[in-house]
């Protein structure tokens, strides 16, 4: 190729050499950059074809979606027997909540998204009005789920179960543990000795004890520590334990965020005459929380999945329901289908949280706009 000459200062911007950009360039660089790489690509494509073929066959093409029992399933086809799920989907979702009252759970669940929208998406239109609803929502949800007011039938806690139980435990735990975690993180950094010591003790104790121990304490011993006459239901006690446990982790994650803020930020705020609470609200927390988003969401996801541990104290979360289904002689041996279904539910919820956190990180990234 002949090199053209230009006068100094007149060299134009030339396009990149062909085959280095675009789809063709990407394929060439990433899939067929050398002979061994090309071979690997071809082998992988062939393997993927057989794997996906088998998976789709088992999951969908050869699967049975309705039958009376496992044996009936096998007579129809040899793929997955989803009948164990479809026949018991009500239990998986609502536990033993009375069938006639399940609309109350549906409404609570759907309005939950309306209540969360203004908290999760700051740019939403009419945010102020929606925030009032968010404030009102916990009472609304409590009344609707528990009943006993406005002519709604009172439902016992012991009937709660399934995904509904997971969502109640997870959402309450997440919503309560974030503010508590922030307070603990601030407390741990405080100049007041008493506040700092109390925060450190709380955090270290909660982090140092297995969650399952705390759940046993909640189910059997918590009433000894509370003033006589108080009698929380087991559900509230479990929520308190989940909240405390994940608040301790969140506090440490946020402390990491607080410590990552350069000292100059505080000096600038000090020099402008801001007091402690102004600094905390406008300088420390916005920056510390932004840095801590991945860690906080990590803790939330952990908490959400840990709600399955309540099965050891006799609450019927989806895994409990699944085990009950498997104990039924009709469905004996369908553990793959059952656990895959439960896993899918958890995966969808956790993946959504993870994507939301990525979106939020991107949105708050003010350096690269």
């Amino acid at each position: 190729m002949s090199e053209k000459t230009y006068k100094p200062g007149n060299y134009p911007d030339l396009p990149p050499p062909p085959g280095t950009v675009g789809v063709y360039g990407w394929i060439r660089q990433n899939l067929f950059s050398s002979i061994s790489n090309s071979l690997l690509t071809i082998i992988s494509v062939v393997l993927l074809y057989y794997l996906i073929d088998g998976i789709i066959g088992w999951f969908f093409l050869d699967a049975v979606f309705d039958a009376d029992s496992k044996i009936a399933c096998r007579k129809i086809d040899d793929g997955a027997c989803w009948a164990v799920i479809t026949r018991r989907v009500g239990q998986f979702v609502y536990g033993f909540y009375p069938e006639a009252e399940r609309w109350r759970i549906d409404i609570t669940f759907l309005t939950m998204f309306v209540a969360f929208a203004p908290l999760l998406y700051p740019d939403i239109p009419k945010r102020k009005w929606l925030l009032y609803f968010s404030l009102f929502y916990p009472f609304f949800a409590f009344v609707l789920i528990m009943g006993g007011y406005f002519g709604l039938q009172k439902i016992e806690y012991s009937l709660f179960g399934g995904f509904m139980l997971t969502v109640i435990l997870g959402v309450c735990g997440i919503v309560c543990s974030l503010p508590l975690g922030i307070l603990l993180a601030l407390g741990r950094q405080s100049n007041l000795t008493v506040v700092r010591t109390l925060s450190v003790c709380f955090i270290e104790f909660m982090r140092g004890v297995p969650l399952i121990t705390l759940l046993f304490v909640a189910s059997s011993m918590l009433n000894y520590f509370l003033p006589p006459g108080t009698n929380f239901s087991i559900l509230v006690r479990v929520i308190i334990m989940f909240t405390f446990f994940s608040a301790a982790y969140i506090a440490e994650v946020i402390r990491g965020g607080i410590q990552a803020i350069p000292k100059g930020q505080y000096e600038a705020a000090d020099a402008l005459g801001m007091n402690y609470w102004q600094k905390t609200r406008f300088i420390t927390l916005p920056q510390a929380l932004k840095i801590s988003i991945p860690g906080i969401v990590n803790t939330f996801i952990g908490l959400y999945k840990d709600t399955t541990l309540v099965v050891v104290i006799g609450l019927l979360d989806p895994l409990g329901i699944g085990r009950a289904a498997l104990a039924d002689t009709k469905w004996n041996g369908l553990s793959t289908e059952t656990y895959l279904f439960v896993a899918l539910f958890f995966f969808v919820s956790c993946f959504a949280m993870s994507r939301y956190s990525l979106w939020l990180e991107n949105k708050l990234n003010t350096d690269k706009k």
Partner: protein
Amino acid sequence: MVVNKNKSSKPVIEIKEMHKWFGNFHVLKNISLGVNQGERIVICGPSGSGKSTLIRCINRLEVHQQGDIIVNNVELTGDLKNLEAIRSDVGMVFQSFNLFPHLTVLENCTLAPIWVKKLPKKEAEELAMELLTRVKIPEQALKYPGQLSGGQQQRVAIARSLCMQPKIMLFDEPTSALDPEMIKEVLDTMIELAETGMTMLVVTHEMGFAKKVADSVIFMDEGEIIEQNDPKNFFNNPKNDRTKLFLSQILNH
């Protein structure tokens, strides 16, 4: 040379026999210094000489252990009320800008006026735009600090301090972190500020700025004020050997 018509003999800062230690290290030794209203003082000296620490003591970012510091007739003590009052009267510009990266330029400028001075939001924004115009970057008001050049960031930092309408401005090596081509825009802003009659204490190595603006130049070394003089005598007839050595080092390279 910027002629100073605003200088008066009314002292706004009085430091008397002040000492400070970092642990066992005696960083400031027997500092006495008076600054009159409208006076422009440049402090220079080798690194580690305590010049930054000295001006950081004036708004109590550093706490002195002995002696008195009186700013605007209020003595600096541990009393938080006094401290916040003094801090909103004393602006400070840092070497590393220290803008709040999560807030826009405009929000950086209005945050303290709104919450510390309780200015209505609209007024605070008008004032901020006026000052951003003065430092010549009103068009950047809605950007974030991370999107600006170093020189622009430092000018925003100056505007942010001015939004509190301070009586005294402290500059802690405002141009040391800047690329050479950006130093001038910041120094020009500071010169314009000097022309408005602001009381200024400037820690800097920019001797051209000192010659042009300062009423008085202080040389510090090892925690002591070695020499203080008007710029003409300071640069032409330095008395102390250490001052001579320092000037020869920074002027002849």
